[in-house]
């Protein structure tokens, strides 16, 4: 397993993280989630991430694509498999664990 992972990492080079954050307008929870996410990414994934903010108030139909009902929701679309984390991401350790930042990006 470890060998396979090494092989994959080695093969693809540094992995690109694609993160989508669904928010509803500039609500306190949304702002807080965005701030928490950016801090985490800068610390652990600097240079290897992109964050897409989707404001459902402006683009409500996009909610169906990732089956969003809770706000804020963070979707990690890359690396696969897809993960979802809801909430304001205030518990950094929990977010790290959930996104598997350490295991996927040592």
């Amino acid at each position, binding site marked *: 397993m470890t060998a396979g992972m090494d092989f994959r990492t080695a093969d693809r080079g540094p992995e690109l993280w694609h993160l989508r954050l669904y928010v509803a307008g500039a609500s306190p929870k949304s702002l807080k989630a965005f701030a928490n996410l950016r801090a985490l990414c800068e610390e652990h994934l600097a240079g290897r991430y992109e964050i897409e903010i989707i404001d459902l108030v402006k683009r409500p139909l996009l909610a*169906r694509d990732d089956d969003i*009902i809770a706000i804020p*929701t963070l979707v990690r679309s890359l690396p696969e498999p897809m993960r*979802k984390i809801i*909430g304001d991401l205030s518990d950094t350790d*929990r*977010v790290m664990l959930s996104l598997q930042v350490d295991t996927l990006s040592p």
Partner: protein
Amino acid sequence: MTAVISHPVPSAVSWVERPLLPKAPTGIAGLDEVTGGGLPRGRPTLVCGPAGCGKTLLGMEFLVRGITEYGEPGVFLAFEETAGDLAANVASLGFDLTRMQADGLLAVDHVNVVRADMDETGEWDLDGLFIRLGAAIDAVKARRVVLDTIENLFGAFSDAATVRSELRRLFGWLKERGVTAVVTGERGEGALTRHGIEEYVSDCVIVLDHRVIEQTSTRRLRILKYRGSLHGTNEYPFFIGEHGLSVLPITSLGLQHAVSEERVSTGNARLDGMLGGPGVFRGSSILVSGTAGTGKSTIVAQFCEAACARGERALYIAFEESAPQIIRNMASVGIDLARWMAAGLLQFHCVRPSVLGLEAHLLAMQTLVEDFQPSLVAMDPITNLIGAGQGIEVSAMLTREIDYLKGQGITAIFSGLSSGSELTSSDQQIASLIDTWLLVKAIDGNGERNRALYILKSRGMAHSNQVREFLITDDGIEFIDVYVGQHHVLTGSARASQEADERSKATALKQDIEQRQLNLERRRKSVEAQAAIMWREFQAEADIVERLRQQGSSAGEVREEERVEQGRLRSADADGTGAVEASAVD
């Protein structure tokens, strides 16, 4: 969006003079009657019950009828099934969801919430759901919303407190949007719903149930509460038929049948006579009850034949015999049903009672009646339905059936098997529903069994209180007066022998009287003869006396003459002294 639109309330619900609350008619057969016009407009209604009870279908039909019948587009937010599954599931009921979606009248949104690929950290809310729902509502300009089953959210999130507060906010938000919502919920242990969402939806709660009693499943619906509105409080059976849900409200809701003064013949002049002449009222319900083999079916068949002979259509629902068997049997007593079948005036519907649940029977009957439009419906025998349900359910079903038929002005004749001479409990349960009750009974005695009929009751008409014996002859039913003696009623050969006995007694008496009259005449003649003789004797005597009297007086004259002559002979003195002596001699 404040709802001021008032919808007409079905006329059957007369106790709702005017809707106290604006209502959104569901279009579901029967449900609008028991809710007094529909669900509370602009408010959420909770529909809860166990799995498979028909919650989703009720919600879907509410939307579909809203679109097709009331011009109100709708949104279906599905937490359990995908849009494709939903469309496939209701396609068999004739609901074309894909088409409605294409026409922009219906939005179906499947919300897939799985906890496995989701983590929670920190605060969140359900704004995403609100936005999705809001977008769907706006897209089709929805007036109706169904959330099926919203409680699945509790399974998706570990933070139940947030789900709770968000649901409370959701229902408030739905009210603000002025949409009429149906929220379904799974029945929980000791509570209406598993997560107690009835706490948030307090305007109207409908409980569905699905019970199996004696291998027969029955779906039931009950309006648990309906704030600000009158509603039926009973459990109403409902049925998922070919065209969706049918709630079958019970009679008590509407006793508003138009009644007919018209009388229709029973098919037997003598029986008509017992019912005061012209027969039974059109649209009334008639029960013929009795023990096995008393001729109930024959009477029922005769009613059918009479209807067909008038050119009317009759529907014969048989629970224990097949149509060919009934036709053959009735032909043997001179009732030709095959002729009326060929003429298209008679239709048979033969089905075992256990094949369907009671509600299905009722619905099948209603469908048949709607298709065939008969003026007479016969059910033979209704007691067999007890095999398909419990006594009280059977009577409830019959109540609805009679109610339905009366509402249509259709005459209904039922036969009922009773066990023994006493009225059975099933008889008693439906007794009050029946307008004319004919009781046929077998009278045993002298080694034979004879049939007798009497009218137990017949509302609104003079009717005979007499027991009539009836014979099933080659030409149908024939009624005969029974022998009513001082202490007993005789039928059959006992009646015949009693009558013969009476006849011979009468003859003997007559002969006796004749004899006595003859004797008297003879005596009179003899008395007259004797009187004549005595009269003649008397006359003779009288004649003698007269003769003697006449003789006597002439003799006196002679003597005077003789005395004068003697005196002259004796030369008596002139003063007549000699005459004195002569007189002394006399």
